[in-house]
């Protein structure tokens, strides 16, 4: 089975067709490399992100289904949050399911008149009526229903939206299986605008390789590297939440809307404490031995019945602990878990939701908004109950204030004031690192304004340890190099956690083994990485992005980082240098 088949689905006409596009995959590998070209092809200029013309693109890569940890699906679309490039990656079983259904990519366009969900079984595509599941309160319930309705459990992915997606909250997520997400930049709202409640995909195609014997040997080598690596142990044992204590001690953990960089009782919400007191299960994406997904058991007593408890499994990671925990002053473990659960139930992006609520709390404190706007809700640091209610109102949008919050922090601040403390980078809410200039330069210059674009935070942390000082130019160059290489990884759809395993040599060897291109060289890979990054920025420029318009939130130059107080001019220089490299 080849990778180059693309399934095109039109929700307006309820039709689909398959096209073979070897040109795309040969040149751009797969994943993000292919998705950006499809976005450039399929998304008309100045398209309305919530209009039928906005395509949803999913792409996987040549190693998917063959090697461990090539398990991510890249989703691309025009973001309703930033009004520009939307890109989000999710794992679960999505990638292997798409590949085994026989596709390298799927493009969904149009808008259905009535709620619909898609069931894709290999070459068969069914448009199923979803009016009976539209409006269901919990995203968990939607998953349960579709699980029963469709077959092939274990071989399929179920992507679905919650009510947040239906109500087109700009940062609504798409929940994959359970506990994995296309979280950032509002893919959930795009689903909602198309009346698309869910997509389930499955297939049982074999994936052939050129040299089976060499394939088995290389497979064992990669797997051994994985299970022996220290990083992998970190992600397995405690998970990303092992970052809470170190970042708190480093004074880089954004807290109380980044008025502080550490918080009292951080140990309560640390990965260590959660693992010890609450860890109930670890879960893996398909074809990954690591099992980095950590689920906490939340045990709550029923008020009306003694000795009876409700037990809920709640996923936790570093990012939601930062955004819904330290940012909101919520350090009581159970309260944090309940808030994460609410966000999950509604189907929202945890990072954006937390940053929006943190801004709202400070705006309320400062009197920019009053109980008139909040409809009597008192937003207070650490008040989990109030935050859960606020989350529900962001979704139901009972008044203008909550509808504005549902558009993201930048829109909220442009309406109500408080731009200085609105932590928005290129229109997307801030990830959880106030480590130094490189972190913020990543948020600003990264194609999707994500900490994962070029991982500046990691550079800062190293610099803090070694006492190294870098110039804006040096930082920009290092970030450019990192972001370019990450384009290669996400074109292969290798999880970024496995970047230490998939070093250039291993990438080349694996591509040759599966018969992708026997002559491919490291120079080719590097070139493809840079080209992909440039294509993304070409799309952004087309849609009106200019780095000169990037706003630097005042708050980040007011609150000290481990590398000292940041200077706006330094950051501006870094931005200029980065975009010079992109030309």
């Amino acid at each position: 089975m080849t990778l180059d088949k693309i399934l095109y689905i039109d929700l307006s006409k309820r039709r689909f067709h398959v096209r073979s596009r070897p040109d795309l995959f040969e040149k751009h590998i797969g994943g993000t490399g292919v998705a950006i070209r499809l976005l450039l092809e399929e998304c008309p200029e100045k398209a309305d992100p919530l209009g039928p013309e906005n395509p949803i693109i999913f792409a996987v890569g040549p190693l998917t289904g063959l090697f461990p940890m090539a398990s991510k699906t890249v989703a691309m679309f025009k973001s309703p949050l930033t009004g520009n490039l939307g890109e989000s990656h999710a794992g679960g079983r999505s990638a292997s399911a798409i590949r085994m259904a026989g596709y390298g990519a799927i493009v969904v366009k149009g808008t259905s008149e009535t709620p619909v969900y898609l069931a894709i079984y290999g070459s068969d595509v069914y448009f199923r009526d979803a009016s009976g599941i539209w409006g269901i309160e919990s995203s968990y319930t939607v998953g349960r229903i579709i699980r029963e309705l469709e077959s092939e459990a274990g071989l399929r992915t179920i992507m679905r939206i919650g009510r947040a997606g239906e109500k087109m909250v700009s940062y609504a997520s798409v929940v994959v299986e359970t506990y994995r997400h296309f979280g950032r930049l509002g893919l959930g709202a795009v689903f909602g605008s198309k009346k698309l409640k869910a997509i389930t995909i499955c297939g049982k195609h074999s994936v052939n390789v050129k040299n089976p014997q060499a394939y088995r040997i290389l497979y064992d080598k990669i797997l051994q590297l994985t299970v022996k690596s220290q990083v992998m142990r970190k992600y397995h044992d405690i998970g990303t939440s092992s970052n809470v204590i170190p970042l708190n001690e480093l004074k880089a953990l954004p807290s109380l809307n980044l008025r502080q960089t550490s918080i009292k009782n951080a140990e309560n919400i640390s990965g260590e404490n959660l693992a010890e007191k609450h860890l109930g299960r670890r879960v893996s994406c398909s074809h990954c031995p690591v099992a980095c997904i950590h689920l906490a058991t939340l045990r709550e007593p029923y008020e009306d019945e003694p000795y009876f408890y409700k037990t809920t499994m709640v996923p936790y990671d570093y990012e939601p602990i930062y955004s819904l925990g330290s940012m909101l002053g919520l350090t009581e473990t159970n309260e944090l878990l309940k808030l994460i659960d609410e966000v999950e139930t509604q189907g929202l992006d945890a990072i954006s939701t937390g940053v929006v609520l943190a801004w709202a709390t400070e705006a309320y404190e400062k009197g920019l908004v009053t109980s008139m706007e909040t409809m009597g809700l008192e937003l207070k640091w650490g008040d989990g109950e109030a935050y859960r209610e606020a989350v529900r109102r962001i979704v139901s949008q009972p008044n203008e204030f909550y509808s504005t919050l549902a558009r993201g922090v930048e829109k909220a601040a442009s309406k109500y004031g408080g731009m200085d403390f609105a932590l928005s980078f290129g229109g997307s809410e801030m990830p959880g690192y106030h480590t130094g200039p490189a972190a913020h330069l990543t948020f600003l210059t990264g194609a999707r304004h994500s900490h994962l674009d070029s991982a500046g935070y990691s550079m800062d942390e190293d610099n803090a340890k070694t006492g190294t000082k870098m110039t804006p130019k040096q930082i920009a160059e290092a970030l450019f190099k990192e972001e370019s290489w990450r384009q290669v990884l996400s074109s292969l759809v290798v999880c970024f956690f496995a970047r230490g395993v998939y070093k250039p040599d291993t990438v080349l060897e694996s591509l040759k083994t599966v018969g992708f291109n026997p002559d491919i060289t490291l120079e080719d890979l590097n070139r493809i990485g840079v080209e992909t990054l440039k294509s993304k920025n070409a799309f952004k420029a087309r849609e009106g992005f200019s780095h000169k318009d990037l706003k630097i939130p005042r708050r980040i130059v007011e609150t000290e980082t481990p590398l000292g107080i940041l200077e706006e001019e330094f950051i501006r220089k870094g931005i200029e240098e980065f975009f010079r490299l992109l030309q």
Partner: protein
Amino acid sequence: MLKLKLFKAEKRSLEGGTVAGRLTVLDIDKCVGCQLCMFACSRRFGEGGFAKSAIRVRSIGGVERGFTVIVCRACPDPPCMKVCVTNALSLRKAGGVTLNPSKCIGCGRCVDACPLKAVFWDNEANKPNICVHCGYCVNYCPYRVIGLREAR
């Protein structure tokens, strides 16, 4: 804890298939749903994907409730064999069955007969995939969920 003991590639072969062993689920609560066993099963034939896999890992109604491993238990008196109209399935010494693909006409009755739903289907070959208890997958389970036991 990740503990993975892989055989050296050249030593691994399908010879395990003749060992009188029986694949068994040791502790399902340790399963993380990584499906490495399923991929291993198809990789015996030098390919990726699940087309040839005779083992399946799925959640029991959502990953929050954990997983189940569906695989042949090597019954001593296999119902799949009894319904095979062409005698393509014969009793294995240690329980379970061996498929003679040249006799199989792809009717699929064995699939319906198995109460564990452990007879899988290869759509491409139009023949069943039934575990031969070779233990290849066991080597790839990072959490010792499955193991090879001596036959009863």
